[in-house]
């Protein structure tokens, strides 16, 4: 497995370089000179030239590319030309909201999807299975923001258990941060969980048709025991794949939920950066998200080898 990790890691580096070139090109060939965006249409040519020089836009593209990449490798993500704040610490700070949100949402999704999906799979011909199946279809159709609004009106307004929005920084009040993330995690997790339930269900149905499950039953295992001992490991691959996709989509896909709950996360940052033509921030964020997707995919890929000895043997 060692050399395999190395070769996969090398592939990751190549993909990251390719992605950085692509992102840089796309962001920089976009019509609209950042300097004229910042100064507006009434700017004098002299002021424009001065700002360009200040932003480093007078340098050739390849120099700017190398400076960007070199800076990121040193942890320097540049300074936003709009807000004049360093982008790196800004992203790091938003990450303290977005990362727990994505992980929490995924956790809720898993807690919902695995038992319900397994039950729906085992009873897929019986009423209880069909009901779960229908509920998960319904859940897939619910937009996360609507789920969020419903949760707010129940838990925050009616029961007053948690705040309806906003975020308390971890350093101030860790418990407060957790409670302010509870509802958004639930809203994301329930919707993602509904999707995941369908995958768990079909994986369980599939694995139950396998002959080795009959062998397990013939040894005297009950249906559930057979599923726990033999079924889950064999059903895990499609579920892990979907989970990986969901996790990456949650890192930035939570924009809407962040809006609903007024959370200062990455999605909101990206949304605002695009609106403000803050190209440095956009470029950095897109690069980071690309890296996150690639890393999650690598982890998912490597996990297959742990889950299935046949893949391990190549």
């Amino acid at each position, binding site marked *: 497995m060692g050399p395999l990790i190395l070769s996969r890691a090398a592939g990751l580096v190549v993909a990251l370089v390719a992605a950085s070139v692509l992102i840089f090109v796309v962001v920089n060939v976009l019509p609209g000179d950042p300097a004229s965006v910042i100064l507006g249409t009434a700017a004098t040519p002299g002021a424009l030239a001065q700002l360009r020089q200040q932003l480093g836009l007078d340098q050739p593209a390849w120099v700017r590319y190398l400076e960007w990449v070199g800076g990121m490798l040193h942890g320097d993500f540049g300074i936003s030309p709009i807000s004049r704040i360093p982008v790196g610490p800004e992203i790091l700070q938003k990450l303290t909201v977005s990362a727990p949100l994505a992980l929490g949402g995924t956790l809720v999704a898993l807690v919902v999807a695995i038992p319900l999906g397994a039950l729906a799979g085992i009873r897929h011909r019986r009423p209880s299975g069909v009901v779960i199946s229908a509920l998960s279809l319904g859940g897939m159709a619910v937009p996360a923001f609507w789920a969020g609004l419903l949760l707010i009106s129940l838990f925050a307004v009616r029961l007053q258990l948690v705040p309806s929005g906003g975020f308390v920084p971890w350093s101030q009040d860790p418990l407060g941060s957790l409670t302010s993330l509870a509802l958004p995690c639930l809203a994301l997790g329930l919707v993602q969980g509904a999707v995941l339930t369908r995958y768990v269900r079909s994986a369980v149905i599939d694995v139950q048709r*396998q*002959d*080795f499950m*009959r*062998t*397990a*039953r*013939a*040894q*005297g*295992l009950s249906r559930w*025991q057979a599923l726990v*001992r*033999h079924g889950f*490991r*064999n059903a895990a691959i499609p579920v892990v794949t979907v989970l990986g996709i969901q996790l990456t989509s949650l890192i930035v896909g939570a924009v809407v939920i962040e809006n609903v709950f007024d959370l200062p996360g990455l999605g909101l940052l990206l949304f605002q950066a695009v609106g403000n033509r803050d190209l440095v921030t956009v470029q950095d964020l897109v690069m980071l998200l690309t890296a996150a997707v690639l890393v999650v995919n690598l982890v998912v890929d490597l996990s297959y080898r742990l*889950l*299935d*000895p*046949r893949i391990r*043997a190549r």
Partner: protein
Amino acid sequence: MSSSPLFEVRGVTKRYRLPRTSVFARRREIVAVSRVDLDLNDSDSLGLVGDSGAGKSTLLRLLLGLEPPDEGSIRYQGEWRRREVQIVFQDPTRALDPRMTVAEIVLEPLRVLRLREPMSTRLSELLDAVGLPRAAADRYPHEFSGGQRQRIAIARALAPRPRVLLADEPVSALDVSVRAQILNLLHDLRDLYGLALVLVSHDLSVVRHLCDRIAVMHRGEVVEQQQTQSLFTAPTHPYTVRLLEAIPRLRWRPSPRPSE
């Protein structure tokens, strides 16, 4: 010979409901096994033959206790049916969990049944008994050939020291070249451990070498049950006669090809 047999099957019927063909259609039933009577004693070996759909595999599932019969009774006179009745399935490639090592697969029945045995010595015994190298223990099923996989499956079935071994078409998924090896292995193991053997096959020649007695099944019913020798020399049921005629012979006779 004791008065009551180890397995006593009386008037056993098993039906399955077919899935609906449309929302309004009534679900139709198929009778897989119909009013079967069967006896099996210790160290008996019984062959079950018949073409596909005759109910052979269903009868095995009933003997194993995987499903209850709809009518009739199956009485097992041993002590602990779940331990004493074990099965070897047809396709060892699919019947073994691909995520488990050979050691885990072979020893699983001991764990499931909570039998207290020295695991590693038992594992070596079993691998020796089925002719697998001890180094096989830490490998996975996909690393073995079809015949070797069936040896793994047989070792698994033998692990809890059964009295009755059921085998559902144990060689039909295997290469012709290794079929004889597996059949010989079953033969030797039966003699070594004094197992009662129920061997299901659609192939009379497979059953002939291993079984003292043969039951012929047709459309869920046992239409004929005889000692192997007399079945081959004096079949009574017309279906048995047809089965016997279907055995390919080495003597070449010119016959008109059926035109289609």
